[in-house]
């Protein structure tokens, strides 16, 4: 897949995932890989700066949790401001997809 097409969409993808509940880094990478059938793989170098950016803009928050085996995980959870932003952007995204579809879709 052309990476240029994906530019800027990572934050929306992450916010959509976090809408389903708090997640930790590896869980996010695995979920993305599974849902895209392996066509899109997020790497740590892309994932964490994107998560930290969303945290700095107060769209998500994070907390540490210790597992039963004593290991720690940092969970990320969406905040109401993140949900509001995602809702607005989803609407824009659907309009954009419909517009592009009109030109490059099967009926075009």
């Amino acid at each position: 897949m052309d990476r240029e097409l994906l530019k800027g969409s990572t934050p929306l993808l992450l916010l959509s995932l976090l809408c389903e509940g708090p997640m930790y880094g590896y869980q996010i990478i695995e979920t993305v890989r599974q849902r895209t059938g392996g066509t899109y793989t997020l790497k740590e170098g892309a994932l964490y700066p994107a998560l930290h950016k969303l945290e700095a803009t107060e769209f998500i928050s994070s907390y540490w949790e210790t597992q039963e085996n004593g290991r720690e995980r940092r969970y990320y959870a969406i905040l109401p401001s993140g949900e509001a932003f995602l809702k607005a952007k989803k609407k824009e995204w659907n309009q954009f997809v419909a517009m592009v579809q009109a030109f490059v879709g099967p009926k075009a």
Partner: protein
Amino acid sequence: MYRALEAYLADVDAGLRGLSRRRRLVLVRELKAHLYDEADARGIQSEAAMTDMLAEKEHPALLAEGLACGEVEDATHRGATALAAGMIIGLATGFHLILEGRRWYIALTFAAAQGLAVGAGYFWARRHWLRLGPWARTGMAVLATLLLSIPLGFTTMHGFKPTRLLYGAFTGYLLERYTQERPLWQVILEPVAFTALMFFVEVVVMGRVRFMWWKVPLELSFNATLALSALLAVRLRRFLAERRVLTPQEQG
């Protein structure tokens, strides 16, 4: 701990040298947790298998560069937006005091204390209570801005004026409440209710001033200016946050 993992994390840590020690520790701790999660999921139990897994990863120097770059940008964004939003509040309230005919240096110090200490300070500290519920967040905002407004108490001609702290607390209340969706009648009613509270405290509780009707529109317009500037500050910050989030950042 695996030696290969230890070496990988040490290399990442070395690449993060420009950041504060505390931030570096958090980033490395998070990466370590991530790699252990992946190792567990892949059933890795030997040093050799861990070495193979790490060989698939980004080069530690490149990974550290990406993380550090994002950190610097995030810190700049956080500081700059807090300052810009605080300045809106400071300028609006300071300008109102000049229009009221207060001495310029009182207006200036009030604007600086209100904008920089209370406004920017609130936006800077807010991330620490983001995970609380709406009312707890509001309570924390009021408490924090009450403390941050101590310099505001000295912006008078006659030493420390404790009622000035209420303006700081009100600013914190407004800023926190404006980040939540709320009905218009509440937005309108708040400055009115706060004006009534200020008169009650100053006239009835403290007996500092005599009540005069002509003071009511003056106080009300000041509080309405404060509320409007707080609303603008929150909107500006949200706008800048959205712009920042939508700035492409694709490295993986």
